[in-house]
């Protein structure tokens, strides 16, 4: 077991290295000169100023030296200074990363709470009308883009176009938890639900099909034959086997979840890492773009590592 975890961690470290190299290369291979961009759109800048800035940013060094320096700094947690805000990239990211992780984490939890029970239920009612309703809902859930779901939720619960007798929820913004926990959660609820529904649909479909597999196993017939009550068969044997493959699907969906936060944060003006990235791209702030992509990809790699380890714990054959 320890060996398995060590090996999986070593792979994750290797992947982190590869990913950071690709990010560095992509940023440095891009067309256009960042120095000229930083000095503004002036078509005829002072050559001395250009040279000075180039030296200050280390862009006059050979690319391999630049790469080595960047890597050494990145290992020490220094991702450079933002062009547009003139603060360390790590500082901007540090203040926003927890909010994105909170949104993604709450959505993942909601998605499991919705997807797992519905998947089990629809497998047990296979072929009945309620199964048809649930699988149709899941097809819709995987097809509707997260921002469309977001607007749908805003239209229904924030603008309250049908005039339902419900307390309306704020459609955007962010309030610190320490300032007002209830206002914080009111603003978290809609984006988290919008992000969770698509994931819940995938989890539900996978749970359903893996429940159907587990239900048709020989061992289940044996358990029933020996007279074990049906609810015991389902809860203690079928569900335990059925949930293992679902872990893999959750892992595969992590990329979509992290990508989904980008769109979801934009819809709800949630000031997380994704909105920072979109701003950085629009302002061509290369160190900030580089930093955001690197941090979000690292989160992706690390969550995948955790999912793989959990899978290994649940199913010793996968080690």
């Amino acid at each position, binding site marked *: 077991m320890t060996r398995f975890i060590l090996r999986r961690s070593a792979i994750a470290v290797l992947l982190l290295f590869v990913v950071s190299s690709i990010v560095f290369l992509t940023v440095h291979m891009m067309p256009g000169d960042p120095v000229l961009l930083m000095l503004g759109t002036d078509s005829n800048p002072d050559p001395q100023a250009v040279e000075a800035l180039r030296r200050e940013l280390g862009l006059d060094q050979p690319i391999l030296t630049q790469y080595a320096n960047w890597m050494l700094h990145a290992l020490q947690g220094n991702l450079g200074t933002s062009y547009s805000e003139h603060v360390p990239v790590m500082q901007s990211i540090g203040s926003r990363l927890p909010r994105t992780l909170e949104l993604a984490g709450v959505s993942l939890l909601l998605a499991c709470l919705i997807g797992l029970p519905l998947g089990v239920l629809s497998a047990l009612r296979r072929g009945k009308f309620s199964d048809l309703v649930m*699988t149709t809902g899941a097809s*819709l859930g995987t097809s509707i*883009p997260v921002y469309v779901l977001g607007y749908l939720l805003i*239209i229904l619960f924030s*603008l309250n176009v049908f005039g339902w007798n419900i307390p309306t929820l704020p459609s955007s913004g962010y309030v610190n938890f320490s300032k007002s926990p209830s206002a914080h959660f009111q603003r978290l609820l809609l984006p988290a639900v919008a992000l969770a529904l698509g994931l819940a649909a995938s989890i539900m479909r996978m749970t*359903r099909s893996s429940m159907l597999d587990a239900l048709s196993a020989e061992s289940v017939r044996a358990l029933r034959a020996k007279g074990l009550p049906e609810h015991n068969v389902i809860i203690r044997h079928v569900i335990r086997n059925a949930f293992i493959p679902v872990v893999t699907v959750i892992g595969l969906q992590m990329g979509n979840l992290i990508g989904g936060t980008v769109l979801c944060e934009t819809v709800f003006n949630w000031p997380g890492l994704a909105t920072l990235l979109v701003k950085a791209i629009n302002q061509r702030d290369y160190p900030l*773009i580089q930093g955001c*992509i690197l941090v979000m*990809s690292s989160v992706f790699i690390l969550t995948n590592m955790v999912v793989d380890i959990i899978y290994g714990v649940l199913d010793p054959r996968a080690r």
Partner: protein
Amino acid sequence: MDFLKRSMKNKKFVFSMVVLVPLVFVILFGPQLAPNDPLAMNTSSALAPSSSQYPLGTDEYGRCILSRLLVGVRPSMTVALFGTLGAFAAGLLLGIFAGYLGGKIGGAIMRAVDVILCFPPILLAMMVVGLWGAGVRNLTVVVAILYTPHFTRIAYSSTIKVRKMEFVENEISIGATLNRVLFGTIFPNIFSPLVIQISLTVSSAILLESGLSFLGLGVQPPDPSWGQMIGDARNFLSVDVMYTVWPSLFLSLTILATNLMGDALRDILDPKLRDSF
């Protein structure tokens, strides 16, 4: 004929055709079908409700929403279809070679392709588009690169399975050329999982392209695209709900139909998996 008969019995297939056939028509003849010029501004009738002149109303510049929807489908579909085609071709070649050669070279090809999977797809796309510029051509290339690993993996694992079968061994032993073995014998036998993957990839690519356009990183204005229209409508949600609803509805229906097509093809082409979803 058997394929056709099974297809028409499949409700998902029929539903998706009901949406996709008119869609193809719109992709081909959208500009001719549009009742108004999709780029013509008319600020005096901005955010107008639906009328006989503007069947689905107008946007904030007084442009006809229906015309923009009919024209805006083309860039998204170009990106999705050609990007998928590129990914299919690259993935098939890489996967079939890696699977046929096997061993260390095959493994090395697979590891190299897997690197792309280390990034959440939309992030890699945002990085490339943000640095290299948006536009249909760049988006198509990004989609092709992003989805190559999926096809490579499928082609690789299916080739390995087929490669060991006797009829392939026989053909190699009587001295068939590599070209004939790979594309004459192995390719037809690994075709159905790849076809299923094509429809799944098209729907992911539509989602990706519209997401980027929604963020303002995809198709550039004044040319319309569905994702971009949803993004533009954001500021007018409390004034004109339908402005957001129409492009959202068209986009979601298209993705739903493409997804159902994938499900239907899996049911039809892969009897082993039938009824599992």
